[in-house]
C-alpha cells in the first residue's frame, strides 16, 4: 500500500514538474494583475463565461470576484429553529485505511531515524546545529526537530507557497524549485494562476478594485498608514472610536474594542478577563491564541471534548461541586471559551446547547467568532445570527477582521462595563500598536456594506429570538436595533460608498452566494462518496485523506491540473495522527462553475487515491453538478 502510494506520489511529482511549463503557467515580469496585460486572457480563471453579461453587471474583476448572476445559486444561511444541531459526526474509514496510515507513519519514522543515524556519521557538518557543540546546547535538538526534518520537510512544497496579488477567487503563485532534499528552495521566476479555495476570504472582500478598495485609498490619503502608538498613549484617532461603535452595532453588543492583530485579541485580552481563582473551560480544539491567552491569565483550565455538550455538562457539574483544587473554595467565576466555527474541523458550535447549560450553570460565555463572523447567519452576524439567538445573551464576543472582511486585526465586544475594563486592563491598550487607518477603513467599508447604510433595508424576514428564559434580560434585548443597519452618523464623513454597497444589496448578495457555495460543496463531496467533517452550512470543509502519503499526492495533483487549484493540507500535529485532511474554504467570490470545477477535480483524484469511503449512495459527478440547486435546498435525497 505504502509503496504503491509512494510511487503514485512520485509519478505525480514528475508530472507536476513536467507541467510547470505548460500554458497554464506563464512567465512574465509584469506584476500587473489585470488579466489582459498578463496575457492569460484565454484562461477560464480570469475570463468570465460568455453567458454572463459582464463586468458592468458586477463591477468586479472576474479573477478576484467571480461573475455569477444566476439567482438560483443563492441561499440564506440560517438554522431551522427547533431542528437538532449537527455537531461533530465522524465516519470511520475502513480498517485497512487506518492500519496503513499507522504503518506509513511508522515507516516514515523508521526511515527518518535511519537517515539521521547515517547522516550524523557521514555528513556530520549538516547536523552541527542539532547537537550540542562548543558549549552551547542545540537550539533545536535533533529529537525535537525530528518531525519537522524527517516528515514535514518531505512535503515542504505544499506549505508557505509564496504568492503575489490579491488572494481572491484566484491567486497567483510564485513557482518554486526545491533542491537538496527540500532544504533549499528558490523562485523560478514563473507564476501560476490557480483557483483559490484556501484563503479565508469568505465574503470575497479581498479585492484590489471596487468600493472598499476605493475607500481604503481615500483612507490612506486622509490618515496615512499608521496611527503611531498604543491606544492609551498617543495612538488613538477618531477613526478608532467610530469603528468600535460600528463593530458593536454589527455584532449587536453595547460596546467593542479593537486590536491590531487577531491573535493578540485573544492572547492579550483573555488575561484581563480572568485570573487566579477563576476557571476557564475550553473546548479541546480551541485555537492557539486562546490557549496562549489562557496560559498568561493564570486561571485554572479544564478542557471538554470537542463540541460535546454532555462532556461539558459533566465537567461543569464536577468543577462547580468540587470547587478549586485542594481548598474546595468555590470558583470566583467560570468562563467557557468556544469558537463559533472551528477552522480545522468545520464544526459549528452547538450554541443552543451551550445557552441551555449557561442558564443552569451560570458560567460566562466567550465565543471566538474568528471564522464565523461575516460568514454565517442571514445577516452575516455570526453564529448567534445563524441560530437566531440574541447576541446579548452571550457575554463576550470576539472576532477577527482577517477573514470575512479582508482586513486585519480583531475585536472584543460585550457590555460597556466589560469593554471599559478591558480597555484599561488588557495588554493591548497600554503596550501594543493601535490598528492602522487603512485597515480601519477596510473594516468600516466592508462592514457597512454588509449592514447597509441608513435608510434601512426593507426587512426581508421576521425575526424570532430564542430567549424564553427567565434569566434573559428582556429589556436589554428589546432595546437595541439588531441586526440593524449602519447609521450614517457612525461612518466618517469623507467615506463614500457606491450605491450597491451603501444600500446593502451587494453585501446580501455576498452572504447568499457564500451560503450556497458552502452547502453545495459540502453536500456535493458527500454525494461523491468522500468523508467530510463539519456542518453542512460551514464554509470550511475538511475532506479526510487519512494517509499522510496522500497529502502531497492530493495537493500536487490539484496544482497540476489544467485549471490549477491550490488547497491546504493539514496533518499531525494540527490534527490527530490518523486524520490528515485537505481543507477547503469556499468564498462568495466563487461561482457555481468554480465549485463544479473543484468537484470534478476531487472526483478524479479521489478515484486515483482511493479516497471515497463515505457512507451512503454515490452519485456521479455530473449528476451532482446537474442537481446542485436541489441538493442545496434539500429537495433530493
Amino acid at each position, binding site marked *: 500500500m505504502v509503496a504503491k502510494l509512494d510511487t503514485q506520489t512520485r509519478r505525480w511529482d514528475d508530472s507536476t514538474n513536467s507541467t510547470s511549463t505548460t500554458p497554464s503557467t506563464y512567465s512574465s515580469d509584469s506584476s500587473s494583475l489585470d488579466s489582459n496585460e498578463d496575457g492569460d486572457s484565454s484562461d477560464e480563471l480570469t475570463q468570465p463565461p460568455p453567458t454572463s453579461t459582464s463586468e458592468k453587471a458586477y463591477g468586479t474583476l472576474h479573477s478576484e470576484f467571480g461573475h455569477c448572476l444566476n439567482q438560483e445559486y443563492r441561499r440564506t444561511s440560517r438554522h431551522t429553529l427547533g431542528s437538532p444541531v449537527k455537531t461533530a459526526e465522524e465516519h470511520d474509514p475502513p480498517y485497512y485505511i487506518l492500519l496503513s496510515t*499507522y504503518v506509513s507513519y511508522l515507516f516514515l519514522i523508521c526511515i527518518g531515524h535511519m537517515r539521521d543515524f*547515517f547522516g550524523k556519521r557521514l555528513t556530520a557538518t549538516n547536523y552541527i546545529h542539532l547537537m*550540542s557543540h562548543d558549549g552551547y*546546547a*542545540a*537550539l*533545536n535538538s535533533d529529537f525535537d526537530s525530528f518531525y519537522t526534518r524527517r516528515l514535514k520537510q518531505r512535503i515542504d512544497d505544499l*506549505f508557505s*507557497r509564496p504568492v503575489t496579488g490579491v*488572494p481572491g477567487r484566484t491567486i497567483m503563485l*510564485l513557482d518554486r524549485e526545491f533542491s537538496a532534499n527540500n532544504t533549499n528552495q528558490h523562485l523560478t521566476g514563473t507564476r501560476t494562476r490557480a483557483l*483559490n479555495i484556501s*484563503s479565508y476570504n469568505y465574503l470575497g*472582500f479581498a*479585492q484590489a478594485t471596487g468600493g472598499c478598495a476605493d475607500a*481604503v*485609498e481615500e483612507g*490612506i*490619503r486622509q490618515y*496615512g*498608514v*499608521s496611527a*503611531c*502608538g498604543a491606544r*492609551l*498613549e*498617543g495612538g*488613538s*484617532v477618531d477613526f478608532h*472610536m467610530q469603528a468600535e461603535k460600528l463593530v458593536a452595532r454589527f455584532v449587536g453588543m453595547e460596546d467593542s474594542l479593537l486590536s*491590531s*492583530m*487577531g491573535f*493578540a485579541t485573544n492572547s*492579550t485580552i483573555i488575561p484581563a478577563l480572568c485570573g487566579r481563582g477563576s476557571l476557564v473551560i475550553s473546548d479541546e480544539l480551541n485555537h*492557539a491564541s486562546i490557549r*496562549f491567552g489562557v496560559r*498568561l491569565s493564570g486561571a485554572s483550565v479544564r*478542557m*471538554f471534548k470537542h463540541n460535546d455538550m454532555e462532556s461539558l455538562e*459533566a465537567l461543569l457539574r*464536577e468543577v462547580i*461541586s*468540587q470547587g478549586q483544587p*485542594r481548598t*474546595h473554595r468555590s470558583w470566583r467565576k*467560570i*468562563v467557557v471559551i468556544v469558537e463559533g466555527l472551528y477552522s480545522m474541523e468545520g464544526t459549528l458550535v452547538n450554541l443552543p446547547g451551550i445557552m441551555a447549560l449557561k442558564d443552569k450553570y*451560570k*458560567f460566562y460565555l466567550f465565543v471566538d467568532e474568528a471564522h464565523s463572523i461575516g460568514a454565517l447567519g442571514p445577516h452575516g452576524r455570526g453564529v448567534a445570527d445563524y441560530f437566531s439567538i440574541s447576541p446579548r445573551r452571550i*457575554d463576550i464576543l470576539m472576532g477577527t477582521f*482577517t477573514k470575512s472582511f479582508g482586513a*486585519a486585526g480583531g475585536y472584543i465586544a460585550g*457590555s460597556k462595563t466589560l469593554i471599559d*475594563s478591558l480597555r*484599561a486592563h488588557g*495588554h493591548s491598550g*497600554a*503596550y501594543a*500598536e493601535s490598528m492602522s487607518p487603512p485597515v480601519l477603513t477596510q473594516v468600516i467599508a466592508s462592514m457597512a456594506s454588509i449592514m447597509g447604510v441608513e435608510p434601512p433595508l426593507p426587512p426581508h424576514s421576521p425575526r424570532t429570538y430564542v430567549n424564553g428564559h427567565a434569566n434573559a434580560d428582556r429589556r436589554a434585548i428589546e432595546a437595541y436595533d439588531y441586526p440593524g443597519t449602519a447609521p450614517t452618523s457612525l461612518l466618517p464623513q469623507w467615506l463614500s460608498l457606491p450605491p450597491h454597497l451603501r444600500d446593502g444589496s451587494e453585501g446580501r448578495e455576498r452572504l447568499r452566494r457564500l451560503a450556497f457555495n458552502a452547502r453545495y460543496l459540502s453536500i456535493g463531496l458527500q454525494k461523491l462518496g468522500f468523508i467530510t467533517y463539519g456542518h453542512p452550512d460551514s464554509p470550511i470543509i475538511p475532506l479526510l485523506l487519512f494517509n499522510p502519503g496522500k497529502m502531497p499526492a492530493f495537493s500536487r495533483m490539484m496544482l497540476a491540473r489544467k485549471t490549477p487549484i491550490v488547497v491546504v493540507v493539514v496533518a499531525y500535529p494540527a490534527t490527530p495522527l490518523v486524520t490528515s485532511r485537505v481543507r477547503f474554504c469556499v468564498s462568495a467570490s466563487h461561482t457555481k462553475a468554480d465549485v463544479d470545477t473543484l468537484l470534478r477535480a476531487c472526483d478524479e483524484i479521489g478515484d486515483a487515491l482511493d479516497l471515497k469511503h463515505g457512507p451512503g449512495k454515490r452519485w456521479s459527478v455530473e449528476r451532482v453538478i446537474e442537481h446542485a440547486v436541489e441538493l442545496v435546498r434539500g429537495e433530493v435525497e
Partner: protein
Amino acid sequence: MDDVEAALKPVVYYLSYALAAAEYSFYKIPGSAVIARYVKSSHQNDPGRTLLELLLVIFAISTLLHSRTRADKSGRHFIKFTEKEIDELVDEWNPEPLAQPLDEDEQADLAAVPVIAGASGPRPTLVGTGKTVLNLASYNFAGLAGNETIKDRAIETLRKYGLGSCGPPGFYGTIDVHMDLERDIASFLGTEAAILYSQGFSTISSVIPAFCKRGDVIVVDRGVNFAIQKGIQISRSTIRWFDHNDLNSLVEVLEGVEKERRKRKGPLTRRFIVTEGVFENDGKMVDLPKLIELKLKYKYRLILDESFSFGTTGRTGRGLTEFYNIPASQVDMLVGSVANGLNSSGGFCAGSKVVVDHQRINGTSFVFSAAMPALLAVSASEGIRILQNSPQTGVLERLRENVRAVRGVLGGVRCVEIPSCEESAIVHLYIRSSSSEEDQSYLTTTSAKNNPTSAQPRNPPTFHIASEERLLQHIVAECLSHGVMVTRAKRLRGQEMVEPRPSIKLALSAALKREECVFAATVIGDAFVRVLEGEGRMGVAK
C-alpha cells in the same frame, strides 16, 4: 565500484558498531531481558502480532495523552457527591461579576486619553477641544507619518494586492512583499535572515517561547518591558533575574547559574540572556559590547529587544549594533518593531537562517495568525529606504538634535529627573524626589544579596505610584492646555513583575522643528514646577 565500496565500509562498520552499542545499553536497563525474551518468542510465533502490539502501544500512549479532557476523578481531594447534592451546589454557587466597573481614577484616566481627529503627525488636531497641538506622545521618530512617498507606495500596493492577506503565512499568506521586507530588514541590519510578525507587541512574546523550553535557563534584566515578561512566562523556562541594566549583577547571576549546573551535573541546557537595547520603561541603554563579551564568555545566546532603538538609534537607525559598531550577527535573536521604528505595523526577529527558519514553524503568533497586510509591508520597506538615506537627508540627525534640545531644557529643571540615555528617542521624565540620591546609591551597596530567583530587586526604590501618577496626570493636562500633547507612560499596575516608576514618556520626532521642541520642553518644565509646587512638595519625597 571501488569508490562505493570504500564509502560503504565505514557505513557497515558503524552500523554493526551502533547495533552492538544499542543492544548493550538496552540490556543494561533492568527488566529488559524479560521484555526481549517476550518479544522474541511472540515474534517467532506470530510476526503479525508484534506489529499489532506495537500499534496497541501507540494507541495506549495516544489515549493517555488525550485523557486530559477527562474529569480528574482519581485525585486525593476528590469528594463524591450525589447528583442531588451537585444540583444544590450548582444552585448555591454565585459567580463574581465578569468585570468590575472601573473606579473613578481609572475612568478619569480613560477619559483623558488624547484622541486625534484625522491623521496623526507632529501637529495634529484633537477631538474634543478641536485645538491643534504639538505632538510629543505619538511614535513618529523619523517623521515617517504622513510621508507622501509612503502613501503613494501604499496605494499602489493596495491596487495590486488588496488589503488583507486572508491567511497565515503557511497557507498562501506569504506574499512576495513580505519576503521583500524580510530581505530588506536582514540586509539593512546585516543578518542572514529575518522573519515578520504581524504585531510588534506580540513578536517577542512568541520569539522567546519558540526557543526557550522547560528546563532551559533565561537570565533576564529586572527592568524589561511587559511583552518580554509575557514571553518568559509562556516559556516555562527557569528564570534568573539580574539588576536593571547592571552588568556586574549579570556576571554574578551567570556565575551562579554555572555553579548550580556543575553541582547538579545535569546535561547541557540552552541558556539565554534576554534584555532590551533601549529600555521601554525608562529609556536606559544597555552596554552592548560588554554584554556580547559576557554572552560569548559564558556561552549564552542573546535575545535583544530593540523595539525602541531600531529606527532611531545609530547613524542610520539600525539600532544598538550600529551605534556600538558591532555586527548584528553577534546578536543571536534581534527583535525589533516595524510599528514603532518604521511607522507601519508588526515586528520582526532577525538572526541566522537557522534561527529564523525555526520560528517559521515554532513562532506561535507567526504560525497561527494572518500575515500582515501587503501595503503595510511595502510602507515599512519604504521606511527602511528613507532611513538608509538619512545621512544625506539628515532625518535622524534632526531627531537627535530635538532630543538634545528637550533634554537641554528639562535637564535644568530641578524637579525633573531624566533616566533615559542621550541616544534614546523616548525620553522619560520622573518626578525627582529627595530620596532619589539614595536611590542611586542602592545600586552600588552590596549589603543585601541579590536573589536571582525573584523578580524583585534587593533594595526596591521607594516611590508612591498612585500619588505620583496623579501628579503626572496633572502635568499632562497642564501641558495640553498649553498646546503640548504628552502622555504618562501607561502601565498595567498590578500586572507588571516589577512596578516601573511612574513617568511621563516623551516620544520625539524628526518632524518637529527645534524651536517647537524647545517650546514644548519649556511648557513641560513649567508644568512640572507649577504642579509640584502647587502640591507643596517640590523636591519632597512622599
